[in-house]
């Protein structure tokens, strides 16, 4: 494997059972993504983008095929080993933010650092919150923040561990155009600063266009 390749998939297939029979969501996909690359996964609803993202991030296992993430073959790992790998090498940003409502903004950002046992979790999280412009709101709970602010917290949480790969699933999908644009800006800035690989699922062609590479999915296959 090329040392510069941070994410590689070989002949990935994901099938699910449904009342209508077996559906193939991801159909024999192979790809390689180099370190520091920004890749947009685009396609119509139901094309299999989110499923491919979940497979690449080790959230789900393929029906067949192999995946290497940061040099580790994740398709041979169990759930907990994949979780450990995610804690160390992967960041996530979701459309629905997925902040823990019971924790403050700061505590939400501290969470991934604490999961890997970092002693400087508080200071590192605070620095990252300041970087995304939310230093003064560190003690606020998610319900006290606007949608854009919540997504900034989520971005800070995803970036604070300096992951090898940052996965973003429709990061602007729940935001208005202006807020979405500013979040987009921040996402690429953070990515550039850390040299992180970015894999982005989006419907937004403008957002996709800002990525170094665009992969289009149709009916489970890459075009």
């Amino acid at each position, binding site marked *: 494997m090329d040392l510069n390749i941070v994410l590689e998939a070989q002949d990935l297939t994901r099938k699910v059972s449904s009342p209508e029979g077996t559906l193939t969501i991801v159909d024999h996909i192979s790809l390689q993504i180099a370190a520091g690359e920004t890749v947009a996964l685009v396609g119509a609803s139901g094309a299999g983008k989110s499923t491919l993202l979940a497979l690449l991030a080790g*959230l789900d296992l393929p029906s067949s095929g192999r995946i290497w993430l940061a040099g580790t073959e994740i398709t041979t790992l169990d759930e*907990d080993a994949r*979780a*450990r790998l995610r*804690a160390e090498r*992967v960041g996530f940003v979701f459309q629905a933010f997925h902040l823990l409502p*019971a924790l403050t903004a700061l505590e939400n950002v501290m969470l991934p650092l604490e*999961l890997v046992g970092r002693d400087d979790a508080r200071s590192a999280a605070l620095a990252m919150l300041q970087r995304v412009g939310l230093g003064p709101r560190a003690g606020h709970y998610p319900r006290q923040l606007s949608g854009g602010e919540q997504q900034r917290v989520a971005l800070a949480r995803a970036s604070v561990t300096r992951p090898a790969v940052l996965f973003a699933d429709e990061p602007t999908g729940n935001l208005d155009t202006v807020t979405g644009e500013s979040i987009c800006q921040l996402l690429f800035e953070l990515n550039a600063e850390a040299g992180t690989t970015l894999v982005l699922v989006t419907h937004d062609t403008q957002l996709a266009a800002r990525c170094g590479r665009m992969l289009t999915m149709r009916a489970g296959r890459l075009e």
Partner: protein
Amino acid sequence: MRPVQLGLRLLAREWRSGELGVLLLALAVAVAALSGVGLLVDRVNRAMLLQASEVLGADLRLQSPRPIDARYAQQAQADGLQSSATTALLSVVLRGDATQLANVYAVAAGYPLRGTVRISDQAFGEPQDTHTLPAAGEVWPDSRLLAALGANVGDSLSVGAASLRVTRVLVSRPDQGSGFVELAPTVLMNQIDLPATELLQPGSRASQAALFAGTPQQTQAFSKWLAANKQDAERLRDLREASPEVGNAATRATRFLLLASLASVLLSAVAVAMSARRYVQRHLDVVALLKTLGASSRFALALSASQLLAIALLATVLGSIVGYLAQNGLLRALQGLITTDLPPPGSGPLFMGLVAAVLLLAGFALPPVVQLSKVPAIRILRRDMTAPKAAAWLGYGPAMLSVLLLVLWVTGELPLALWFSASLAAVVMVLGGAALLLVQGVGSLRGRAGVAWRYGLANLARRRVSSVVQVIAFGLGLTALLMLAVIRGDLINSWRDSLPASAPNYFFVNIPPDQRQAFADYISADQGEITRLLPMIRGRMTAINDQAVAQMHFAGARGEAFAQREQNLSWSDQLGAGNRVTSGRWFDAADNGKPVVSVAVDFQESLGLKLGDKLRFDIGGETYEAAIIGFRAIKWDSLQPNFFLMFPPGLLDNAAGTYMTSARYRPTQSSTIAQLVRRFPSVSIFDMDDLLGQLRAMIDKAVLAVQSVFVFTLFSGLTVLLAAVQASRDERRYESAMLRTLGAQSSTILAGVLVEFAAIGLLAGVLAASIATLGGYVVASQLLDVPYHPDPLLWLGGVLSAVVLVCLAGYLSTRSALAQSPLGVLRQG
């Protein structure tokens, strides 16, 4: 971050959402019920042990008809135990010309080793504890003896050949016994004076006892030594043996209270299970997110488990406080039933509360929480992904195991635990079946009502399982309360009313043989109606079919008690009213003087006897053997004199004894009873009206105590209702928003909700009142044999209170869900 730390931090925030309140409440009610009753039971049991040692006047008591070997006391002293001795014999006590047969009780220094002697300064005076004994040359007669002899403090009495001065009046001594006929007047004297009385001659009938007391370890070791070294005729009694005499009724009553509290615990378990399911639903996303961020399944499990444990601890603290207060309330309710001073509450029952809370969580909440920790991380992207379903044994196994462990722990014996579990399951199944039918029936009515009614009844029928669970949960406590109300009110009154006006109202025992005719004449002359005069002698059953009773074991405490205690024996050629021969036959003229015996069915069943069995008795030192000729069923509530063991005339006529009878007697003047006492001083009189009044008061108190325990059950039922409402909360929020969007008024939605809860209350009330009425009928017709008239107030009160309580709880718990803005709710979907 450690999972425990994160779990507690999340818990503190989640607390504000109010979702965990029901879980906490359910656990706290369970802990309160169990620890409240547990505290009381613990105190009563410890008091019983103390009281048992008082009944013995010691920790160990060796009784013998012959003088006791002095080396026992020497050995006891060497082992560090205290010892003392008593001698009891019947003798006539004289003052001038006045005579009275009395129980002369001579005691050695140190008596009593346990318990206290109570005395007063004058006859019938104010009692006070004393730690002294009559000095040499002194006696302490009881008030009855003084009255019979017309004596006062300061007079001298002749006891045998000695003349002793009365210095105090004996009120009670710890080892005096509480039997029906052990109420002969007593005189307490110092053993130093015993030789001077010359009462103790070779062959004289005296009962000697050696008393020993020490630490439990010393007592146990000495008891073993004594058992190995004592003579066959010597009888060793320890606390274990004495306990049943004082503690059986109380122990059984308190154990029943514990079982009653278990009903509450098990209902709370249902609420815990429902709340746990809700907890899992609410935490699916949290666990999926944590896993996405890199947390392991173990981390997720530790997080949830720490939250549940924290809730258990909090519930234990709250429940224990309520339990402690409830225990005080229960004690007040039982005042008079528990006559001894109870030791202060121990910490054991509080620990029991904690274990119960942890067991409930482990059985009912942990299995779903374990499944929660297995939620895949992919749920963060795919909402349809949920926790994998557990195998059936994993889902229900821990719940059943924790229930069985709890029941076993509380009951202390497997058969009772199984019996209780099976009975509860049967009651739940009956209630469940009936509730299901009612819910379906009510649901079918919805087409005939307005919008609010249709909405409410449709909800009831749609959430059928939940509705049935709520009806059962609420109905169970209510059934118990109403049933107890029936027993407390109607049945006791019915039984009392059913006694014929001519039923005897006095019992007279200890009538001297030579006075029996005079006594009967006296009562008749005063318009009294004597039933029948029967002789009464005391005897101990020593063997059945040549096998020594001491070496035999009998099923049940009653059998053991029958075998161990002295029996009252009688003889007659008349079967007697209220007696029916169930097998064998009654005596005929040819049986006179023959060694045969007729046995009561109660006695037969407890000891497993059959016709022809040979029973051996020790009566006043002489041995008699008699074969069972027949069995009799006795109607005890006829209030006629009756005996478990009856012999034909001519066999025991020479054994020393007294007579007893009962009578319908309305003394013409209140002073007549006092005259009767003076005329027949040795006769003990029992007024049945007084006894019935006392019985009624005791039953009232016992029922009240049990009822207060079932109030916990009612609360547990309410927690189930709250848990059910909580489980349907999101659904209700959505429905209410939809209805309001469609233009429904808030009042219409509220009316619909109230209809739903009113129907649940109504069904629970109807079920409870029906079962209580049926139970009342069964108890009345089968056990008491009296007519039973259902009480309309029971129905009205039961149903109305159920409707009001359930509506109130339902309204309070759904209020916030109904009040949310339709837009916000519909946006969330």
